[in-house]
């Protein structure tokens, strides 16, 4: 009899023949799950005299916490920033597809858009648990419109905004409300932005700095007021300069309040950041690195032209560029000095994990934590996600030694498995 039922009647699953990521190490140990959460088997044994109802043989695979993507704009033809009447089926479609990349929770991201789009799209999506239907929604990541003109990247200039009436009111007016928002990216050099940073943080919304020409002091002031993330480090910000490191300087700033960590997003697709730059950032501040896909509509689609927010983009291999406004689009030259505006990536999260490990030379554990533990800590949800501690949600990804996804589980239930 599996248990004396003194604590629960529910079925107990034991994952065997696996290596699990626990205490920052891959350990040869079994993983126990009950009622969607990781279970302490020693307590089960001694307190409940219980053992497993069901065994899942992992055949030597690695079990890591499910990946968490805090910056994803769409995929498989879906563009979250497109104001449709049925945003939720688009989000659900992507949520289901990304399970195969090992992503079990994500923040649907909207690029700079007019108020009408926000007012239409935001109310349609709520924070929700994942499951067979797809990865869990942690809340929106609103990237813009309160960003810098000089660093707009692929964002449409006509919809950028500044804080006019005194900060948070502008935000409310632009977005229509702050429910189901997990994160906001803004430029801290904008007048009135610091009070907005403070207010958003007080409401439990993560504030990220990005698409900005802020200097280091402005960035540090924002961190002082609660900002805790940098949106796609190096991209859409001033380059590192040895007398004013700008936002990049936050990685080694001594002004970060004690006990707090500044996290930074890295698009580790081999394109957005030169591997040498990735290594510099990683070595300077390894515990803050958060892998993001910044995936766009075209992720998962074949090469060609697709829409992103209010703009049109062109796919070539793993590169995605802003298409010219004129119909005759010039093919890219091989000259890397030519300015071509990148606009998001089409690499999947598991590709990013593999690339990050390869480019940085980091350990398997570090690569996995950059996609799970770190984003969970960033969003303040590490008490239940991003790790395999007893009591955490059993959102899991089974991987082979090369970190290819073999299967994905949410709340202990298998939601995707690689075909033969």
């Amino acid at each position, binding site marked *: 009899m599996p248990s*004396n039922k003194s604590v629960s009647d529910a079925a107990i699953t034991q994952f065997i023949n696996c290596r699990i990521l626990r205490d920052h190490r891959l350990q040869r140990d*079994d993983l126990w799950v009950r009622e969607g959460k990781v279970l302490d*088997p*020693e*307590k*089960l*044994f*001694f307190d*409940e*005299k*219980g*053992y497993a109802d069901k065994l899942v043989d992992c055949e030597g695979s690695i079990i890591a916490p499910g990946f968490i993507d805090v910056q994803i704009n769409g995929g498989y033809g879906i563009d979250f920033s497109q104001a449709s009447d049925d945003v939720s089926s688009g989000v659900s479609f992507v949520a289901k597809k990304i399970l195969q990349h090992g992503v079990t929770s994500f923040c649907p991201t909207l690029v700079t858009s007019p108020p009408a789009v926000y007012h239409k799209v935001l109310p349609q999506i709520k924070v929700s648990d994942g499951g067979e239907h797809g990865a869990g929604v942690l809340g929106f990541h609103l990237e813009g419109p309160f960003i810098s003109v000089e660093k707009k990247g692929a964002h449409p200039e006509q919809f950028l905004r500044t804080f006019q009436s005194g900060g948070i009111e502008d935000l409310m007016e632009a977005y229509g409300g702050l429910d189901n928002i997990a994160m906001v990216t803004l430029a801290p050099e904008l007048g009135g932005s610091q009070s907005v940073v403070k207010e958003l943080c007080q409401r439990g919304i993560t504030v990220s700095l990005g698409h900005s020409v802020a200097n280091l002091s402005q960035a540090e002031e924002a961190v002082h007021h609660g900002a805790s993330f940098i949106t796609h480090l190096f991209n859409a910000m001033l380059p590192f300069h040895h007398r004013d490191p700008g936002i990049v300087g936050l990685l080694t700033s001594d002004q970060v309040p004690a006990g707090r960590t500044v996290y930074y997003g890295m698009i580790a697709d081999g394109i957005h950041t030169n591997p040498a730059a990735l290594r510099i950032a990683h070595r300077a501040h390894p515990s803050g690195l958060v892998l993001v896909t910044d995936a766009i509509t075209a992720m998962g689609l074949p090469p060609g032209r697709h829409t992103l927010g209010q703009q049109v983009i062109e796919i070539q291999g793993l590169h995605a560029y802003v298409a010219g406004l004129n119909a005759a689009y010039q093919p890219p030259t091989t000259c890397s000095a030519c300015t071509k505006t990148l606009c998001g990536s089409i690499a999947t999260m598991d590709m990013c994990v593999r690339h990050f490990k390869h480019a940085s030379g980091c350990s398997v554990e570090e690569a996995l934590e950059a996609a799970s533990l770190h984003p969970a800590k960033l969003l303040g949800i590490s008490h239940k996600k991003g790790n395999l501690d007893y009591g955490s949600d059993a959102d899991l990804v089974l991987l082979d030694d090369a970190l290819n996804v073999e299967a994905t589980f949410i709340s202990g239930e298998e939601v995707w498995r690689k075909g033969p």
Partner: protein
Amino acid sequence: MRLVILDDYDLASEWAAKYIRNRIIQFKPSAERYFTLGLPTGSTPYGCYKKLIEFYRSGDISFKYVKTFNMDEYVGLPRAHPESYHSYMWNNFFKHIDIDPANAHILDGNAEDLETECQAYEQKIAEAGGIELFVGGIGPDGHIAFNEPGSSLVSRTRVKTLAKDTIVANARFFGNDLNKVPTMALTVGVGTVMDAKEVMILITGAHKAFALYKAIEEGVNHMWTVSAFQQHPRTIFVCDEDATLELRVKTVKYFKGPSSTDDAE
């Protein structure tokens, strides 16, 4: 008494594990008739547990119809503490085998009433039909379980205050902070172990050599409580060469006679 001497720790662990395995198999345990096993903790039996787990994994043995009774547990240490004997048994043995959790008995050092807990434990052993084979170790001061020097040789399961030597020896498991080391423990008595049908004592390492000498070459004495087993009808001492360093050459030669080590097969 049998004294089985193996060349080193690994061989001694393997011999002991094989002996336990064979005894269980020969007993043919079933739902009507469980094999009751008394178990120790510490660094000495560690290798033996590893071997038993190997035998389980290769299908040589099942613990489905085995009931276990551990010798001791600290008082007042949270059960989940990494140094508790519950943690030791879970991590080094129980989690790797197929024993029914209801059949794995360990004294509860956090029980409301320690006296009652001890009496209940004796009761459970009696209800299980007594212990078939009690496996134990020996301390450098010759103690078995926590029956420190001066313990009655007919003692039963009870609360014991630990000797200063034991507390100091244990400090290394508690960050070398003497204040963190438990000062009391629940332990089976010498008498409790003597009641078992058969007793097997594992002794390895040169630091145990003097205790082994006192236990088998000198008289029965409550200052070296393991010596009580000189009066048990079926006792085996399993040791490595180093543990015999304080014995008379004559004793060792006698026990190393022609067929002394082959019984385990």
